[in-house]
């Protein structure tokens, strides 16, 4: 029970809600979701913290709820990050093979990865992820493990996600302020895709779009590796805001209308239909045209999809998506949203399902939790990688180290 290394927690500080998912890594390394905690978020705009005090309280609530549900003590988390400042791009590293027999050694592979990571970033930015894609040996594409191969020139493609350091630090500091350790930060789009996609889908090529409250994160997998990622500071909040503006209702009411009568496409029967908004006493306040409501929503969501499609089209990534598009996040709940996305992307679109993870059925069915589940999954994958190496000594050292850190 005490500091169980098999317990992995994903924490997502979202714009509309803060969500902590507790996962347990089974004997075979599979993740089992055993607890979930959530709290409506305050002090977060567009995926970034604007009021640390309020946000901290919400994070604490979510963590406490998750602890109670899973009956564990949470010490460290994998933290999801997002925001409009995050960028993803592909970088290529080159290394000449100098050994006499032209055999590529493990050292050569280390060197080429090092070269690929040497990226010219603005001083204020840091790298969130540098994910290896494929190796090229003398221009030959698709090599996954070049050690032992012969070649003169070794290249590697890396996908790099970077963001502004200070803004990333804001959420890390907030979590650390709660006496929690941050194991790693993970880009939300990446986490969602980990939760949703199977290996087969990654191999075929798939796009995951996570439309949350304040941000839209997306990631493209092709040939089993990450090809593109991106974050837009657009989300469900914008939909509600548009509704509030267009229908001239307060934001809270707009939010409610969005959930109750919203649709991503204008429904056939919406024409001329009206809704009467009542106050708490049941007296009618005003009448809202359902067609307008759905049109405003449709336009905003369509625009979000179009921006993603444009970004991907520039990189030519749209041609790789043979498994189709998967939607996630709170906006995936909007009726007909897949139909709208299908119209924009001209390919099959479905609402993502967390198939590769077992556990609480209630959590796995809901698109809002995908990111947090993906964070836990990221942790489990990382733990598995390091798992073999960890010995008793290092384990004890780690525990003592953590004690020292926390005291």
């Amino acid at each position, binding site marked *: 029970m005490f500091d169980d290394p098999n317990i992995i927690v994903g924490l997502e500080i979202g714009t509309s809600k803060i969500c902590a998912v507790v996962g347990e890594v089974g004997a075979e390394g599979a993740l089992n979701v055993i607890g979930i905690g959530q709290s409506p978020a305050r002090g977060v*705009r567009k995926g970034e913290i604007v009021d640390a005090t309020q946000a901290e309280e919400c994070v604490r609530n979510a963590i406490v709820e998750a602890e109670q549900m899973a009956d564990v003590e949470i010490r460290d988390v994998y933290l999801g990050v997002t925001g409009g400042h995050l960028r993803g791009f592909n970088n290529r590293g080159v290394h000449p093979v100098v050994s006499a027999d032209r055999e590529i050694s493990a050292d050569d592979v280390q060197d080429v990865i090092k070269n690929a990571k040497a990226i010219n970033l603005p001083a204020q930015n840091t790298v969130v992820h540098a994910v290896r894609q494929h190796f090229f040996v003398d221009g030959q594409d698709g090599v996954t493990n070049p050690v032992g191969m012969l070649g003169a020139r070794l290249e590697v493609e890396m996908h790099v996600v970077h963001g502004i350091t200070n803004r990333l630090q804001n959420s890390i500091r907030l979590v650390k302020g709660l006496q929690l350790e941050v194991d790693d930060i993970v880009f939300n789009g990446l986490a969602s895709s980990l939760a949703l996609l199977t290996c087969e889908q990654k191999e075929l090529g798939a796009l995951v779009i996570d439309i949350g409250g304040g941000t839209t994160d997306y990631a493209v997998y092709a040939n089993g590796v990450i090809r593109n990622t991106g974050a837009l*500071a*657009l989300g469900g909040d914008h939909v509600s*805001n*548009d509704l509030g503006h*267009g229908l001239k209702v307060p934001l809270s009411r707009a939010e409610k209308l969005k959930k109750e009568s919203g649709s991503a496409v204008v429904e056939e029967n919406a024409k001329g239909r009206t809704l009467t908004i009542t106050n708490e006493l049941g007296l009618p306040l005003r009448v809202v045209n359902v067609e307008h409501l759905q*049109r*405003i929503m449709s336009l*905003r969501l369509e625009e979000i999809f179009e921006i993603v499609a444009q970004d991907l089209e520039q990189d030519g990534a749209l041609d790789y998506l043979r498994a189709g598009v998967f939607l996630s996040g709170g906006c995936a709940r909007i009726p007909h949203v897949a139909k709208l996305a299908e119209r924009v992307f001209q390919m099959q679109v479905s609402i993502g399902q967390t198939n590769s993870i077992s556990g609480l059925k209630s959590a796995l069915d809901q698109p809002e939790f995908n990111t947090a589940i993906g964070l836990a999954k990221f942790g489990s994958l990382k733990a598995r990688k390091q798992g073999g190496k960890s010995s008793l000594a290092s384990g004890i050292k780690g525990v003592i180290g953590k004690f020292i850190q926390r005291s």
Partner: protein
Amino acid sequence: MKTKGHETVAAENPRTRSIHVIGVGGAGVILADAMNSGEFAGARFAVIDTDAQSLAASSAAVKIHLETKLLRGLGTGGDPERGRALAQEHFSVLQSACEGADVVFIVAGLGGGAGSGITPVLARAARDAGAIVFAFVTLPFAAEFGRREQQAREGLEQLKAIADGVICLPNRKAVKMIDENTPILETFRISGGLLIEGVRGVWQLLVRPGLIQIHFEDFCALVRDRHSESAFAFVEAGGPSRSRDAVEKLLAHPLLDDGRALAEADAILVSVTGGKDLTMAEVGRVMEQIGRHRNRAEIVMGAGIDPEMKNSLSITLIAAKNATPKVEQLDPDNADGAETPESSRRRRGDAPSAPSLTLAQREQLVARHSGRGRREKSKMLQTQLPLAIVSKGRFDKSEPTIHKGEDLDIPTYIRKGVPLN
């Protein structure tokens, strides 16, 4: 083609003006001949020169050969004094040539003896005959520097003092429009063509049926008493983006000094003419663009339809600038005493005693002159108002989400202009 238009106007409008076009000097004769085609039908053409040869080649209806024994058939020999003396001598002949005209267009190339000498006298003769006088003159090329340049300047000053409007084409500017390798004959033809375009622009104002009419009085008030050069330009463009193309051409026009003339002008006259498919939006676009480039100028605008123009649009623009103080020092030695009081009065900036000016117009003119200072000041004080105040709601204070220059926090339906009725 304009004949038809003119005749219809003549039929409908009993106040149709009779227009005389008079070419003076070698260049003027050639230009008048070039204009004496179907386009300017309805005008009476006359040519005046001291050189019998150039007159003989002309097709104009009236040819006036000014000659005395003094010149021995050699013309003025490039001396404007001789030209002037000669014109004074034949003042009554000139006057009779302008008899019955409401408007006289004088076309001349300044710099030579006949052009610089005769033109001012002719202008006064025409005014004495009761006509409104417009002079369209060219100034010499840069290569003709020295005496001709000086003579042209003097002639221009005198002309400005007398004529109701002077529109001048400095050939040195026109050269910029012409390819370097153009033969000299062609160069003269092109610069002449430019001047004719200017005449055509004014002509069209007078005879075309205007949808948005520029009153001739407005036009007179615009060009009169601006004792400086009026810059003019005439452009034509076709195709779907014709209004934009035309404005682009206009602003690139060398005679407008890359649009600087617009910025410096005190008054701008714009006439937009198009085929039957001319839209208000196009006129609006043109005016908006021009309006953006002017500084303090007031704009007189007109729009007209020419059924012959299909898919194309033409803009005639005349930018007039107020007198600069240096007019005073350039003192043209007046050979004629009768001219002095009038021209000096004009130079002082008083309202002119032109016979065509009614009391109301005079008041208007005075008001315009005195009101300019105040208007300028108020214009400077005007602040820029935000175009559309769209509340961004909950994103009002957060960092805006800008994608390709668009603020995505503003509701999509507003940015896309989708109406909700």
